[in-house]
């Protein structure tokens, strides 16, 4: 690919020409779904192009974002952490949004859309449980019943969120098939959707899946970057670098989008480096994957030579996924965003540091963005850095306790 091709694709993205009519971001994206789902996908595409863009819908959404979600979220300057890192550090505080993460921006938007197109029931998948909680809350808000699929491994490691979903009226189904994490939960949510595509709405939780989901989710999350850019310009200048964690890629695409046209701003997505670089030890899809088809899209994936999707690992359930949104695959291909990874250990350290320095307990997912930023700051002293703090860490208390007790045992043994 020549630099002219790259510039043309970036320009098309900036001009709102991507995804194209086929749902493609360059070579990535598309609609790889069973025939049974095609009428539902076509109906949703039409709704995204019509209902979603109407003033009435956007006004209703805006009203929910301010009155119920609590937007705009704060931009926090971190002086103590900045001193430590020798950088000017700013956090975009999605942890302060209702239900504790950016997931709610997407959930309430799609719940309103589901209602508008006459769906009578919502299904969703969840990894960390944040999207499940957000969907449960949004469905309660608009008055739709919802079922959330969650891998059995994640049900155990994100228990506080399971209780919250129940309390908010959702049915939670623990998925014991496949890898029993986010990937299997998506498989199961799709199976449910295939069974009744006419009245069931699939409320997907990240910028993944068949067209039009990557577009819809990005548009609903773009508010993060739009706010952050205005807030930065208001109180400082544009940042030198922006960091966000990448699971499926929704908080990152939401934060990046407003900055894509700012040439001087470097953008970094941080994937889960897990415990090592071998297949199965991480979820670093963009760093280690190749193009393939899963969950409705042609995108970067982790799979073996026979096409079987690989099991992944991350201490963070929300990043533990072998695929990534197709728009990120394009942004990597054209070099506009650089994707790096942070290990379990680096991220746990970054979480502790933010607690100690700024009195903020971040989600383990968000801690990956902090870890990536910290490493970059060491090599680029004196820079201004904006970090997407995608969620709060209350849900991670069981994992953090387990990690601490494992460490104690190891120390005692040593």
């Amino acid at each position, binding site marked *: 690919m020549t630099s002219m091709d790259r510039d043309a694709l970036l320009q098309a993205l900036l001009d709102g020409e991507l995804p194209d009519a086929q749902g493609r971001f360059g070579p990535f994206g*598309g609609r*790889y779904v069973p*025939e049974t789902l095609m009428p539902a996908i076509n109906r949703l595409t039409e709704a995204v192009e019509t209902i979603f863009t109407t003033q009435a819908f956007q006004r209703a959404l805006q009203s929910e974002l301010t009155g119920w979600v609590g937007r705009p979220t704060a931009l926090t300057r971190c002086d103590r952490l900045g001193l430590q890192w020798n950088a000017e550090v700013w956090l975009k505080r999605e942890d302060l949004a209702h239900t504790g993460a950016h997931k709610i921006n997407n959930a309430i938007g799609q719940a309103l859309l589901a209602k508008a197109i006459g769906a009578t029931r919502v299904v969703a998948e969840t990894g960390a449980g944040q999207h499940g909680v957000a969907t449960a809350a949004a469905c309660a808000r608009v008055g739709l019943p919802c079922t959330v699929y969650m891998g059995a491994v994640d049900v155990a490691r994100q228990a506080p969120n399971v209780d919250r979903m129940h309390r908010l009226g959702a049915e939670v189904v623990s998925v014991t098939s*496949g890898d029993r994490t986010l990937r299997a939960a998506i498989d199961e949510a799709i*199976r449910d959707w295939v069974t009744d595509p006419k009245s069931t709405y699939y409320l997907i939780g990240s910028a993944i899946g068949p067209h039009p989901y990557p577009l819809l989710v990005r548009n609903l999350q773009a508010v993060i970057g739009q706010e952050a850019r205005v807030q930065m310009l208001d109180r400082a200048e544009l940042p030198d670098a922006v960091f966000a964690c990448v699971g499926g890629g929704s908080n990152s695409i939401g934060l990046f989008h407003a900055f894509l046209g700012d040439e001087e701003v470097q953008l970094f997505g941080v994937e889960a480096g897990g415990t090592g670089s071998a297949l199965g030890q991480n979820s670093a899809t963009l760093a280690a994957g190749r193009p393939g*088809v899963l969950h409705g899209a042609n995108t970067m994936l982790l799979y073996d030579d026979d*096409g079987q999707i690989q099991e992944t690992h991350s201490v963070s359930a929300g990043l533990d996924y072998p695929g990534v949104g197709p728009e990120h695959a394009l942004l990597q291909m054209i070099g506009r965003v650089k994707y790096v990874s942070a290990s379990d250990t680096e991220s746990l350290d970054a979480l502790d540091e933010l607690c100690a320095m700024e009195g903020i307990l971040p989600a383990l997912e968000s801690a990956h963005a902090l870890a990536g930023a910290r490493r970059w700051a060491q090599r680029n002293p004196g820079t201004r850095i904006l970090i997407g703090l995608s969620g709060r860490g209350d849900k991670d208390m069981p994992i953090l306790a387990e990690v601490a007790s494992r460490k104690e045992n190891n120390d005692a043994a040593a």
Partner: protein
Amino acid sequence: MLPRDRVTQGIQAAKKPALVAFLTAGYPTREGFQAALSAIASAADVIEIGVPFSDPMADGVTIQRSSETAIRNGVTLHWILDELAACKGKISTPLLLMSYLNPLVAYGYPQLARDAAAAGVSGFMVPDLPLEESAPLRDAFANEGLALVQFVTPATPADRLERLCKQSQGFVYAVTRTGITGGQSELPEDLTEYLSRVKAASPIPVCAGFGVRSAEQVRRIGEHADGVIVGSALVEVLEQGNDPAEFLASLRP
């Protein structure tokens, strides 16, 4: 004769309705694959061989279970094509491979088309590949005369049904209800109306099924379609170590 025409002819030449039988390759055991194939070939008119995939999102518990075990048994697309090449000439029943797209992507389309044709495969059905995304694979298959079978469902709108039937090769796969494979086995009430619509739209044979497990269902579907597809029920017969040919024979009216 082109490989894809063998499928069409196999159905047309069969005693009505034709039986299209599905098995997951290498399940329950790898060693038993060739024997299972020959047994099924003696009783079926077309055989669909399932390529196991890690994320069978359109399949129910039976095929999820068989896929998972087959992968653990070391079944791959390469292995399947080697096995088929080894028993080429011994099985005259037309063979189709049923696979999700990613194993085909990993194999590489041009090489896949050549190897599949050489192994005696007549075509493919790909549940997560709608017509809109099918051009690259379809083009690769065209070079070898392989079929790409299209699916239609009760929810398919009329204009789309027309397009799918025109583009389908070998036969048209009419899914008899929305949902995943296996499971609940009642036939929908509007079966007659639905299958008549598909038949009217299709220039090639129509085979129907989803969750078929009884002779009564085969008879009812056979009144309106050229062939009946039997999947999960046959996988369960193989799983229990029972005779697949006997089971298939028991489904014939």
